[in-house]
């Protein structure tokens, strides 16, 4: 069976500068993979390349097969069909990812309506509204009606991030990409969101590409990781294997660092 | 792990040369030509600007490149002097607008909330005011209308806009942690302004000054066109255009040449401003 996503020899350049080089990995349906690496290592660019939303100044080469469809060099129209149905993204910054001038309910209804249309259904407004509330409820937002009626600035960062997740979920994509979805949040909120994400992805049987620079965070939600450094994959494998026996020096320093903070907490330093 | 290996990536990405954009180059050339001409007129012009030796409204020729005016004076000489006037007007108005505007803007940025609110509201009212109309009034009425009254009026009209911009920029700078750091390093408020605020608001301000310069040049020419600007000994382009409007059939060059001179200068300045915006801040990084 062909994997849901297979990235092969992906290279991203801007001018004569190479931002990501020769990156390959693949992800089967329902699989969960983490992309880790320090800031600027090309994680977000890779995610954008997968959705075909790279800035115009960045030129991709190589191949990205998503749900059987080539993404690199493909017409915008074809990609539009792919986005939302095969892949959906949750971005890092919850404040700016939502339209500040639109009520939450309306924003969630957007992707939801598109999915329903795709499925050939055209339910009445009331029906759509109800389903919006369901999704808000799904991401454990209290008082979904109030939230649906609010503007983004009226709810907290954690709540906004939940809304962003709800919007992505409303697409029922085969692959969910989460680009550092919790970096802007408090530890306690982060823990809640991670748990939520974990359970929802499982429940809906989606594949997950989880991006973060925070090893422990990645470890809590994925099965496999790819470690990026300066746009190159330096190591790849199951979470446990990579974190227990890192082979690459870079991975080693990352793991050591993470463990040292863990140890400090445990008092085993 | 030593600190040294941390140096590699960042330093490589950072060594970004200011981009010398074509816009900037074109702007620089246009403005440079005008500045050069203006400086030249201080020492030499093709003809004495007051000499009436030519014929009446001669067409352009090798002797008189842009022909002559009604009194037989060389028109090209007048246009050249126009460059000087325009540059003086622009620079003078910006200098006045900047001096008043930056001071008030900084005061507002540092003031207590109440005073700041009051100043901000006043500035808003002033900006809502048809300030240029008032400038017109002042010029129209000032005893012995002179170039300087036009410059002063334009400068004052400009200062409210500069003040508002300065206030916003300074407030933004003041939010940065380096200001707090500077305070905790024992630097006084005036020290903070000189060390941190001014250098950091300068790039944006200077772009704005360039734009205001262009606006002032246009405004002065409009005032002159309405007969409210620089009086006769000063060959302001606006006045040349106004005078030439009556002879547009017999000597069309008069209604065109000063206009082109004006437009090239203003475009040059605007392009320069755009270019400054692009390259002005060498510290700007591609992404953060």
């Amino acid at each position, binding site marked *: 069976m062909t994997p849901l996503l297979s990235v092969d020899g992906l290279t991203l350049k801007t001018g004569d500068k190479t931002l990501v080089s020769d990156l390959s990995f693949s992800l089967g349906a329902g699989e969960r993979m983490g992309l880790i690496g320090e800031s600027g290592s090309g994680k977000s660019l890779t995610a954008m390349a997968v959705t075909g939303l790279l800035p115009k100044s960045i030129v991709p080469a190589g191949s990205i097969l998503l749900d059987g469809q080539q993404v690199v060099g493909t017409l915008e129209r074809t990609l539009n069909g792919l*986005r939302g149905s095969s892949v*959906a993204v949750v971005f890092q910054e919850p404040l700016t990812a939502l339209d500040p*001038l639109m009520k939450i309910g309306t924003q969630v209804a957007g*992707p939801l309506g598109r999915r329903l249309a795709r499925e050939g259904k055209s339910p009445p407004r009331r029906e759509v509204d109800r389903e919006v509330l369901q999704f808000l409820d799904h991401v454990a937002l209290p008082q979904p009606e109030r939230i649906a009626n609010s503007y983004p600035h009226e709810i907290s960062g954690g709540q906004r991030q939940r809304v962003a997740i709800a919007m992505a979920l409303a697409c029922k994509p085969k692959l969910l990409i989460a680009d550092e979805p919790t970096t802007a949040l408090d530890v306690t909120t982060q823990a809640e969101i991670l748990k939520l994400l974990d359970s929802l992805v499982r429940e809906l049987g989606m594949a997950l590409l989880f991006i973060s620079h925070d090893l422990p965070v990645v470890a809590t939600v994925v099965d496999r990781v790819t470690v990026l450094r300066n746009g190159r994959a330096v190591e790849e494998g199951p979470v446990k294997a990579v974190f227990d026996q890192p082979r690459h020096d870079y991975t080693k320093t990352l793991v050591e660092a993470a463990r040292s903070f863990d140890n400090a907490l445990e008092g085993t330093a | 792990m030593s600190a040294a290996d941390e140096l590699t990536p960042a330093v490589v990405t950072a060594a970004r040369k200011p981009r010398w954009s074509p816009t900037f180059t074109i702007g620089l050339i246009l403005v440079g030509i005008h500045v050069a001409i203006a400086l030249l007129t201080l020492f030499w012009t093709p003809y004495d600007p007051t000499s009436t030796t030519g014929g009446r409204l001669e067409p352009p020729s090798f002797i008189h490149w842009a022909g002559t005016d009604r009194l037989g004076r060389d028109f090209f000489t007048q246009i050249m002097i126009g460059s000087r006037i325009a540059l003086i007007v622009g620079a003078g108005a910006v200098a006045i607008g900047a001096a008043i505007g930056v001071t008030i803007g900084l005061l507002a940025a540092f003031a207590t909330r109440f005073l700041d609110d009051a100043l901000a509201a006043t500035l808003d*009212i002033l900006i809502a005011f*048809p300030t240029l109309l008032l400038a017109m009034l002042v010029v*129209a009425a000032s005893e012995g209308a002179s170039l300087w009254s036009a410059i002063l009026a334009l400068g004052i009209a400009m200062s409210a806009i500069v003040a508002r911009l300065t206030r916003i920029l300074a407030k933004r700078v003041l939010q940065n942690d380096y200001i707090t750091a500077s305070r905790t390093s024992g630097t006084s408020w005036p020290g903070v302004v000189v060390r941190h605020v001014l250098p950091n608001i300068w790039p944006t301000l200077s772009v704005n000054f360039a734009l205001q310069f262009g606006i002032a040049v246009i405004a002065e020419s409009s005032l002159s066109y309405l007969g409210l600007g620089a009086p006769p000994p000063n060959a302001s382009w606006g006045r040349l255009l106004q005078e030439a409007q009556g002879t547009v059939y017999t000597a069309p060059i008069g209604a065109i040449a000063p206009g082109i001179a004006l437009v090239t200068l203003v475009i040059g300045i605007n392009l320069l401003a755009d270019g400054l915006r692009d390259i002005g801040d060498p510290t700007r990084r591609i992404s953060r």
Partner: protein
Amino acid sequence: MFSYVVRRLAILVLSLFIASLVLFVLLRLLPGDPANTLLSVGADPQQIEAAREQLGSNLPLGEQFVRFVGSLASFDLGNSFISRAPVADEIVARLTVTLPLTLLAFTLAIVIAVPFGIVSAVKADRWYGAAISTVSQLGIAIPVFWVGILLVTAFAVNIRVFPSGGFPSRGWHAPAEALRALTLPVLTLAIVMSASLLRYVRTATLDVLGSDYLRTARALGSTFTEALVRHGIRNGAVPVISILGIELASAFLGAVVVERVFTLPGLGSMLLLGIQQRDYPNVQGVLFVSTLLVLLVGFTADLAQRLIDPRLRDKAGAAS
């Protein structure tokens, strides 16, 4: 929202009062005597004194101001020193020229600037996007009156399709003629205004294009156009609306010049003439009315922004 409107109106009235005070003082500071205008070579000094008395321009300043504000409160702008006609009547008559001129030009400018501004931002990497942007640079650098002169030369003198100036004596009772008379002035003003407006639209569009919410919408399957329409218009409108307010004010300023170029009997020519003649009631009246209009436009722009942007609404609510 309601309390905001009330507060805003209070500020408006206050601004207007301050504005008229400034106007009043500024006008009296000007040298020159309105009585002079009524004289001609040959008049003798006693006549001049008589004229001053008749105008009330010999009263103490304070008294003049009290009179002025007092009559303002009863919507009376006084009578012209020179023509003796009620200022308000003349302003109303002249508004029938200036308002259509400004509003038509403004509308035309928006009609030009918005689509072209959006195209030049969305297609910034295509030649025509760059071309639009460059042409708008040119538009910003050209003084209004020169555009007027060039248009007259091209369309009125060379190919005589439009009148070079003036307004039909029957005004809007001859609508076709009146519109024809306004065509070139409106074009002149619109060309210059649309250039600067276009740049603001372009910037606002670029901001929207770089926004995360647009990226999010696209990442969740909306097409580029759909996302731009759904999210871009309102978000782009917020900064553009406040600029529109300022632009409308500058349109009025441009109208003064344009009315001069095309000899239109509008507020601008009334103002210029009033300044020349030191006809204080006229000048005061025009400036007062134009300040009122500008403030009202600003007020409307603020309200419109608040209606669109809930964040502004809440800020106001929290502060009050």
